[in-house]
């Protein structure tokens, strides 16, 4: 619940931001507006090879361009790569690079630079390494052509190449990237005008040559980890835009700020011990379904997130091919049915279950869950876990189930993480023939066939009740309407730097 909640709040709000004051000078000497963005956390590293969570994505996108560009529907369009093609077996991906691109230090971008970056990501422990884990080899097969060989088909690779793992840094700057980024993105970091940990100033990169336009001459990103501080900064006009707690909606409206809600995190129980190694009852489908029926998701949503969210029974993001709205009615709150299912599974008197708890992210959740599961006969005992060890312990197979918040993104990526046998979020590495078979089919399916297969996978997992999702929360993005326009689709999960435009521009 830890990092994920923070990361999600981040991912969704990454680039909430900012202030438009005049300042930087445009190419023709005209003053260009400055954008001041509030970001939910400090940047964790400037080195894309190490990889960074959602909190850092916005910072890195200012200075680096990635091989592909993410679209709101999770498809990708050209970035540093203008074309790409898979072979028939979908295990070889050939990228054709954009010509004339130069890093901000003057080094030209070529196939060797891309190969060196991807190789570095594969050899450096961290999030990038795990994102690129499906890559067997990378070769520069021409001055502007890179060939990636995969261990097996990976439909999520092009998505990964649009995010931090696909960001390309100047090879000359590898040794110092952790603190001094050098990329080919729209801006360069002005360290003299930045205060590490607090505020980062970006000025236009004169060598930027990609077609995506950025309307601000200067961008300032302020790290405001405290949600109240972020709200106060937005309400007092210190930043032009930012993500603020949903609870501040009345003040936001009274203050005349523009706003929109954005998809947030999926909150729920991850029943990871599906084979019943630590908790034998969880091996039974009816027990897992009983947990789904036994938790009052609507009530928990009201108690924990003040009702700002919507009921979910599935783990995939709304608007993605796998998502099926009709599934959300599959497990209505029904403690009687839950008790019946437990009895049918052979547990008429319930059973004891040890779960982890934390007191940093959603402390209010734990007593409610224990009380509701207690009502259907499952006696929950909590073992407190310190906040910085949550992900480590949850993913180490220490607990049969845990409450967790998750930012669902691209379907294949999510399925690989928490459904596949080798998935990091499948800590017991439970294997299911049906799921593995569907994943194999999806991995080589064409675009038309992939959607129905993903929906079939989703429906199967919901019926198996591998999770007990409760609801998807909402986040609030606010901005000064007289200075900033947010050009993003209605239910877009990420609002990126490129989506902010000065009001003065067309």
């Amino acid at each position: 619940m830890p990092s994920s909640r923070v990361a999600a709040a981040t991912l969704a709000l990454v680039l909430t931001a900012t202030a438009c004051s005049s300042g930087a000078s445009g190419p023709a000497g005209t003053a260009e507006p400055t954008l001041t963005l509030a970001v939910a956390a400090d940047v964790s590293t400037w080195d894309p090879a190490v990889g960074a969570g959602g909190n850092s994505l916005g910072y890195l996108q200012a200075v680096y361009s990635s091989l592909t560009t993410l679209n709101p529907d999770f498809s990708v369009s050209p970035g540093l790569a203008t074309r790409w093609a898979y072979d028939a077996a979908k295990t070889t991906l050939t990228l054709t690079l954009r010509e004339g691109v130069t890093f901000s230090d003057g080094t030209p971008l070529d196939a060797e630079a891309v190969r060196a970056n991807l190789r570095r990501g594969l050899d450096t422990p961290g999030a990038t390494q795990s994102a690129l884990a499906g890559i067997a080899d990378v070769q520069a097969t021409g001055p502007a052509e890179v060939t990636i060989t995969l261990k097996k088909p990976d439909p999520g690779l092009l998505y990964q190449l649009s995010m931090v793992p696909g960001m390309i840094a100047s090879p000359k700057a590898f040794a110092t990237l952790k603190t001094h980024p050098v990329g080919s993105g729209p801006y360069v970091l002005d360290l003299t005008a930045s205060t590490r940990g607090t505020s980062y100033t970006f000025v236009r990169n004169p060598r930027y040559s990609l077609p995506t336009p950025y309307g601000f001459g200067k961008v300032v990103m302020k790290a405001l980890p405290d949600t109240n501080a972020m709200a106060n900064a937005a309400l007092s006009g210190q930043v032009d835009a930012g993500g603020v707690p949903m609870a501040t909606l009345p003040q936001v409206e009274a203050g005349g700020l523009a706003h929109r809600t954005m998809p947030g995190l999926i909150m729920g129980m991850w029943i990871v011990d599906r084979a019943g190694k630590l908790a034998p009852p969880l091996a039974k489908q009816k027990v897992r379904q009983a947990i789904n029926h036994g938790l009052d998701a609507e009530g928990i949503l009201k108690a924990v997130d003040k009702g700002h969210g919507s009921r979910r029974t599935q783990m995939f993001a709304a608007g993605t091919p796998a998502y099926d709205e009709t599934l959300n009615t599959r497990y209505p709150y029904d403690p009687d049915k839950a008790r019946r299912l437990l009895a049918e599974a052979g547990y008429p008197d319930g059973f004891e279950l040890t779960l982890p708890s934390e007191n940093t992210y959603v402390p209010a959740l734990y007593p409610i869950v224990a009380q509701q599961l207690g009502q259907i006969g499952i006696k929950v005992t909590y073992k407190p876990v310190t906040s910085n060890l949550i992900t480590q312990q949850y993913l180490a197979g220490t607990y049969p189930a845990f409450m967790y918040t998750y930012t669902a993104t691209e379907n294949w990526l999510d399925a690989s993480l928490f459904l596949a046998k080798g998935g990091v979020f499948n800590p017991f590495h439970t294997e299911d023939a049906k799921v593995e078979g569907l994943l194999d089919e999806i991995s080589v399916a064409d675009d038309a066939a992939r959607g129905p297969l993903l929906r079939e996978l989703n429906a199967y997992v919901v019926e198996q009740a591998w999770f007990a999702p409760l609801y998807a929360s909402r986040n609030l993005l606010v901005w000064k309407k007289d200075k900033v326009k947010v050009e993003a689709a209605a239910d877009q999960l990420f609002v990126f730097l490129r989506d902010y435009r000065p009001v003065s521009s067309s």
Partner: protein
Amino acid sequence: MIKQLSRRLLGAAVLLLAITAITSLLTALVPDPTHNLLGPTATAEQILAKQHELGLDRPAGERYLGWLAGAVRGDLGVSWFTGLPVAETIAARLPVTASLAVAATLVSAVLGIAFGLAAAVRRGALDRLLQAVAVLGFAVPGLWVALLLIIVFAVQLRWLPATGYVAFAESPAGWARSLVLPVAAIAAGSVAAVAAQTRNAVAAVLARDYVRTLRGRGLPRWRLLLRHVLRNAAPTALTVVSLQFIGLLGGAVVVEQIFAVNGLGSLAAASASRADIPVVLGVVVVGVLIVLTVNLIVDLLVSWLDPKVRTR
């Protein structure tokens, strides 16, 4: 005086060694941070390599001696998480905390001593009012005061910034503006503490025989108060002020968070929660040095003000 100073400096060095040694040994009990550093997908070999790189495969005592050897040369190591030198990281945060702590201490000292002196001399309604306000000052949490100040002066009136710290070198006026609200929030409680202690100390001195004698000899009132009463009451006030200052170094975390100013307090909290040991040790060293320095200065001031102390 020189003998006293040498003794104090020697004691300070021993204390610094002891505290850093204990902190270092305590950090050996912290769960291994390499998993958090490398992420959930790190292999066993990668974790071993990282542990070796960070020195976590060496005994705690050996690690401490290695750190100490660097520290005496001014090298406090490198943050395990950011890769930045610890000294540089602390140097970036120190001016923030120092600005907050010094400004809040000055405000509480000046206002606290003035209020305390006035209450002790005037007595009556003023004294009772001060005591009531002091109780209120103790009772109201700084967090609440901070939020109230932000809502009124930043969100509604927009006179002052709600968040952030502006470096003095960047803009002296901006620096002052960025300090007003956090300093007011911090000082609200400490003014009350200093005023209450000063009031009691001054009242005790005023009741002494020699004060009555001096008053009887016709000494001007202001001279009596400043030269004789306040000088004798000053050690108490100074001690309270120094304790407030020291408390601010680490205790301003909440205020730092609300105003989004990144000082030593938030650095210590963040580093401790993710087990960034080199930074934790660096903050401890700097914190201990500041406390020892402040205590030394206060002791010297007190012994200058009160000759009896020197003879002890």
